[in-house]
């Protein structure tokens, strides 16, 4: 029997955002990455256009992190000793974007300085041609100092600067505006809070085409259902025409999954949890696929084995049957 599949005629479209700038565009990147532009729910290409594939970013640190799981340190090995070699290894592992997360103190325990942060960013820009996201260590005043220095030293590169939160966004937005960068806006798993922060940022005169939205998600087992539903609701709102939610979403399943005990540690856990490394990779990839299918445009991962699996799933999903 003939079947007519119900489809929605969505009035809204997610904004298209480009990260990175080539030499011709005022930067130094070998290539740029464009995300967003969806006219339908994730991968529903029988209904509407998905012009840009979701992309995988790999998170690296400015120095070897002490609090990361031994599995991750083992996977990156010597490369993790400095950000430039780590960025190269990440690119070789399949990263389409690099996320550099800055650490509060250097290896000797000295507090991070703007000069030090700029040096790390420049080293990464030298080492890879991929577009870059830079996240501060997460202390408002310090983040602001670092981001201003970084933004000025890399003017025109279209970096994504993070993290803007409702309590601390003005300085980062202002410096991104002055220096031709993007920002990421993070809110805790709530549609209205996400929307509110986007409004605050755009009220400063910052173009919406330069905001990535991080709705935060929780890991598998640690509240992922909240993130999942907040993201589905945000994307539905965007498609229904709510301009302040029409932003590509960046999520950090690598960070979320690897802070879960299930991934982080291998001893002193129940036997029923199974083999550590296998479990840890599943934890990261299952968190990621769930978020991709609720609307993520950029997924930031940590383990190279997860990157490979996730990229293969994304490539598959992008072959979904298209509208006639």
């Amino acid at each position, binding site marked *: *029997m*003939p*079947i007519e*599949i*119900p489809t929605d005629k969505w009035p809204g479209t997610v904004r298209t955002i480009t990260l990175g700038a080539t030499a011709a565009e005022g930067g130094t990147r070998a290539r740029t990455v464009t995300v967003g532009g969806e006219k339908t729910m994730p*991968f*529903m*290409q*029988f209904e509407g256009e998905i012009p840009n594939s979701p992309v995988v970013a790999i998170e690296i640190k400015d120095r070897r992190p002490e*609090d990361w799981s031994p599995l991750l340190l083992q996977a990156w090995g010597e490369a993790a000793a400095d950000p430039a070699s780590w960025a190269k290894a990440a690119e070789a592992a399949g990263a389409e974007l690099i996320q550099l997360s800055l650490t509060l103190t250097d290896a000797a325990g000295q507090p991070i300085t703007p000069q030090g942060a700029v040096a790390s960013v420049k080293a990464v820009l030298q080492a890879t041609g991929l577009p870059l996201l830079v996240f501060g260590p997460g202390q408002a005043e310090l983040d602001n100092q670092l981001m201003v220095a970084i933004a000025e030293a890399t003017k025109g590169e279209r970096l994504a600067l993070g993290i803007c939160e409702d309590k601390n966004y003005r300085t980062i937005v202002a410096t991104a505006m002055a220096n031709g960068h993007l920002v990421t806006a993070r809110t*805790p*798993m*709530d549609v209205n*809070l996400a929307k509110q922060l986007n409004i605050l940022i755009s009220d400063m005169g910052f173009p919406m085409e330069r905001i990535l939205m991080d709705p935060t998600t*929780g890991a*598998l*087992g*640690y*509240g*992922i*259902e*909240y993130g*999942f*539903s907040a993201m*589905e*609701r945000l994307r*539905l709102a965007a498609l229904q025409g709510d301009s302040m939610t029409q932003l590509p979403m960046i999520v950090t399943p690598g960070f979320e999954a690897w*802070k*879960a*005990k*299930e991934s*982080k540690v291998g001893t*002193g856990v*129940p*036997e*029923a*949890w*199974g083999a*550590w490394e*296998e*479990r840890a*990779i*599943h934890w990261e*990839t*299952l968190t990621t*696929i*769930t978020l991709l*299918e*609720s609307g993520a445009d950029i997924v930031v991962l940590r383990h190279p*084995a997860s990157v490979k*699996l*996730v990229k*293969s*799933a994304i490539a*598959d*999903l*992008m*072959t*979904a*049957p298209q509208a006639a």
Partner: protein
Amino acid sequence: MALSGIQIYKLLPQTNCKECGFPTCLAFAMKLAAKQVELSVCPYVTEASKTQLAESSAPPIHLVSLKSNGYEVKAGNEVVLFRHEKTYYNKPGLFVRVLDSEAPAAIQAKIAALDAFKVNYVGIDLTVDGFAVASVSGNAGVFAEAVKTVRQASKRPLILMSRDPQIMAAGLEALKGETPLLYGADADNWEAMAELAKQHNAALGVIANSLESLADLTEKIKAKGLEDLVVDPGGRSFAQALTLGTQIRRLSIKKNFRPLGFPVISFPGDAGNPGLEAMLAAQSIAKYAGFIVVDTTSPAALYPLLVLRQNVYTDPQKPIQVQPGVYEINNPKPEDPVLVTTNFSITYFSVANEVEGSGLPAWLVVADAEGMSVLTAWAAGKFDAERIAKAIKGFNVADKISRKRIVIPGHVAVLSGELEEELPGWEIRVGPREAVDLPAFMKQAL
């Protein structure tokens, strides 16, 4: 789709006799549409109308229940496309497949281990739901033997997999008085398979490679008097499984399209790669499968899948909470530290597990934050200085301890000033943001 009040009104006698207790038939129809009254209170409604109304109020996805020896696995009865619209109801059954070509001793060992597999998550014991036995030998005797072996090693519900009715019949001989799923019926064998399902009171899997041919087949099988069907629309890639699963769910929910209003069965293991298999199974959980047949036997894969299923099927209308109060971890003494967190169950278990695992004694004060996690509760004003102070005072924490000092989560460091005002005489310490860092913090800073 449920009928509107006006559509129901047209099926009523329209005499306004008032015997139902409502002033007019239209008023009664409106109440019926809102599901606030039963049709049976109308003494004059015709049989034809009754049938039509019952049909329209039947769930858009038929409930299919597999049973054996006191176990039951239910799928179907779902009413929404997105869990935030209401909730998802019946968690998809997770079945592990064995092949009849494997040695009986190997099957026995595998099934016994999986049958006993049990993993605790937030106080709930999670297990696999049952097993699928697949005929690849093409031999009825071998298949029957494999089914017998599985049945001896586990009492959980089974899915029997063969397209050959004779092999299927042989397998069924080993299963008496239970409801397995027969997988399955296709365009060639459906009459014989439907007959077997009927004889044995089994559910039937229906296989086709397009939605159109699938709908044709379910209609033919329904005409034979079978209702408990499970559908396999064919797609095995991420893209196809997601597209077909979504299209079937939409047809059911939005159009009440009966020919496809059945639970979907998926086979992530057909990907042939354990990493992709787990991700495909995860996709099946969030996007609409009713039964999931995996090939992995690895706890490292089953555990995250069972947790994901638990998460996605949590009712968003009611967060899982633990009772607010003071929890004693590792037999604390009066001088041991007091930690504060919220009563969202996952938050509580994360904190409690970390502290318990460290072996360090502590008093864990769980404040009533209406079942929200620390950040969410803080953002919503449900975990502020006032609430924390209320918990400390209300649970008489001061009577149990000798040192008036509390540790609050790092995410709510901003509350420490206000808390000092709310709790005079107490020392307020800011702990780490994540539970996983608590043991180190307790060792170094307390």
